[in-house]
């Protein structure tokens, strides 16, 4: 049964030590995959199970007593859907802007020009030193951006890390000969960037969209600091009130009130709202995970290229 490894047509018998290693490795990965997937699976099956079974801890590996009660409650909670629409807006507009601005800067930094060292230093320095939360907050207030939609779009517009990944990608995967040829044909930086670099940057555009998109979709802290108007809040900030609190009533009163109308009886509602929380998680996480799964093909390849420096 001993397997063989082929090295340039020469077969070499697998040693006993290697066979043991392979078995250990396989077991190791099965355990790791289980740890990774199980919590997510548990959320999904709990969200479609009978609330009583979930609360009794009977839902372990498979849904029990199929019920969509939780989802019905979530769909009737209007504030959640307002914030959902807000989040889609912030994510789509914000990420599109981020990708455009980052690509332009990444291209410029991949070429030689006078003053590049200073610009590079200015940008890298922000990675290691910042004004701190409060000066940033006062700055936003002085710019009259506090409590506006704009602040959620311009904050974190460019990430230094992503800029570096994009620059490395452009440097390493678009040959310099192409630039020289284009210049011979009379291209300037604009025409070269828009006609040659952008069409060749599909992979890195996909990677940047996922990076920026997911970061924006998942951010709750920016809105917590800079937004006061509840109608402007993104999804995660609203979710925080529902999910991350100890008390059953607490700050998420509105959520349970909406739930009570549906089921009758606040007592009952509070008990079953626990299950609706699982539904909230599913509803809010699906877009980010889907974006990743669809972009996955470009993603792994692009990140690899970008993360290898030089």
């Amino acid at each position, binding site marked *: 049964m001993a397997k063989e490894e082929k090295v340039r047509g020469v077969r070499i018998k697998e040693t006993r030590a290697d066979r043991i290693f392979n078995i250990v490795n396989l077991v190791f990965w099965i355990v*790791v995959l289980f740890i990774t997937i199980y919590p997510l699976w548990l959320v999904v099956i709990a969200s479609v199970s009978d609330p009583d079974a979930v609360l009794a801890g009977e839902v372990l590996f498979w849904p029990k007593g199929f019920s969509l009660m939780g989802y019905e409650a979530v769909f009737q909670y209007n504030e959640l859907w307002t914030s959902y629409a807000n989040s889609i807006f912030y994510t789509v507009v914000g990420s599109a802007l981020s990708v455009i601005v980052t690509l332009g*800067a990444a291209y410029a930094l991949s070429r030689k020009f006078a*003053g590049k060292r200073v610009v590079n230093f200015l940008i*890298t320095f922000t990675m290691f030193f910042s004004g701190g939360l409060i000066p940033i907050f006062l700055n936003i207030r002085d710019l009259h951006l506090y409590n506006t939609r704009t602040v959620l779009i311009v904050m974190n517009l*460019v990430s230094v890390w992503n800029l570096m990944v994009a620059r490395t990608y452009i440097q390493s995967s678009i040959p310099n000969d192409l630039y020289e040829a284009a210049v011979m044909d009379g291209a300037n930086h604009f025409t070269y960037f828009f006609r040659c670099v952008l069409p060749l940057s599909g992979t890195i555009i996909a990677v940047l969209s996922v990076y920026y998109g997911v970061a924006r979709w998942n951010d709750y802290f920016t809105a917590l600091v800079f937004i006061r108007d509840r109608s402007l809040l993104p999804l*995660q900030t609203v979710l925080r009130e529902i999910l*991350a609190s*100890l008390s059953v009533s607490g700050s998420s009163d509105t959520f349970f009130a909406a739930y009570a109308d549906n089921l009758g009886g606040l007592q009952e509602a509070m008990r079953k709202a626990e299950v609706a929380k699982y539904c909230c998680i599913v509803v809010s*996480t699906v877009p980010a995970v889907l974006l990743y799964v669809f972009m996955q093909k470009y993603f*792994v390849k692009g990140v690899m290229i970008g993360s290898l420096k030089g």
Partner: protein
Amino acid sequence: MQQVTKATHSVRRPKVPLSRRFTRAIERDWQLWALLLPALIFFIVFCYFPMYGVQIAFKDYKVGKGIAASPWASTKGQLDLLKHFRNFFNTYYCGRMFADTLLLNLYGLLFSFPIPILLAIMLNQLNSKRFKGFTQTVIYVPHFISTVVLAGMLYLFFSPSTGIVNKVIEAFGGKSIYFMLEESWFRPLFIGSDIWQNAGWNTILYIATLTSIDPQLYEAATIDGATRWQKIKSIDIPHLIPVAVMMLILSCGSLLSSNTDKALLLQTSGNIKTSDIIGVYVYNTGIGKAQYSYTSAIGLCLNIINFIIIISVNTISRKVSDISLF
């Protein structure tokens, strides 16, 4: 010969005046600057303006007057620039906050730093290409879950009455634990959930390094009769060390600036003794109670310490191992 060329070069240069060189460079490169401009404006307005605003740490900030016009910090009419810093170091909880922040990050580094390296090495040893691809896809998924949802999952799974973890503990005859209110459980939960969420994602850099190793090395090793374990020890690990050291230097730069947003979600009245992170205190006192100058001073203090740590770690590493970020 070399000296001569150098000399003529330095004599020639001043013939073109600086202003002329400047206009020439602009004429030649203005399109690059135009592409760079939006990002540059962003960094100046949203990163460098706040650095200018950091001066309020040495002032008594008045909302009506703004940053520049507020008076310098003083006590009883006497100029006292370091007042806010001293006030912070004199608060009762200052020591606890420093300890909590530092310990959370140190433990976090200790446990979550080696795991991605281990995962990358083990992944690289998988024979089946399909299983490898599947595994790689799956271990990245938790990274795409938001901090709020992660905290929500912790609250649900570790709930004392209905959480699955306590149900399992009870099934084995144990007593249910109120994890979220237990001070001894804050760090394990915080760091454990961080590993679950990010260990897979953080393998990317290491996997990229491993795939860039010349396959001939492995072939030669196989022919010489090396086992997989020996190949890991003498090929994989030496190749990973430079990248690992770089990542270590980078994480040392944030030893005092842990995930404020996550700590804010997991802090409860019960676990405050271990979850009293400086970042959360700054948020609560600064944004919540509008003590802008005082909290700016705390923030500045942290940033300076972080900056000193990363510079010194980088210098030491450059001297000892020739590996450095800059």
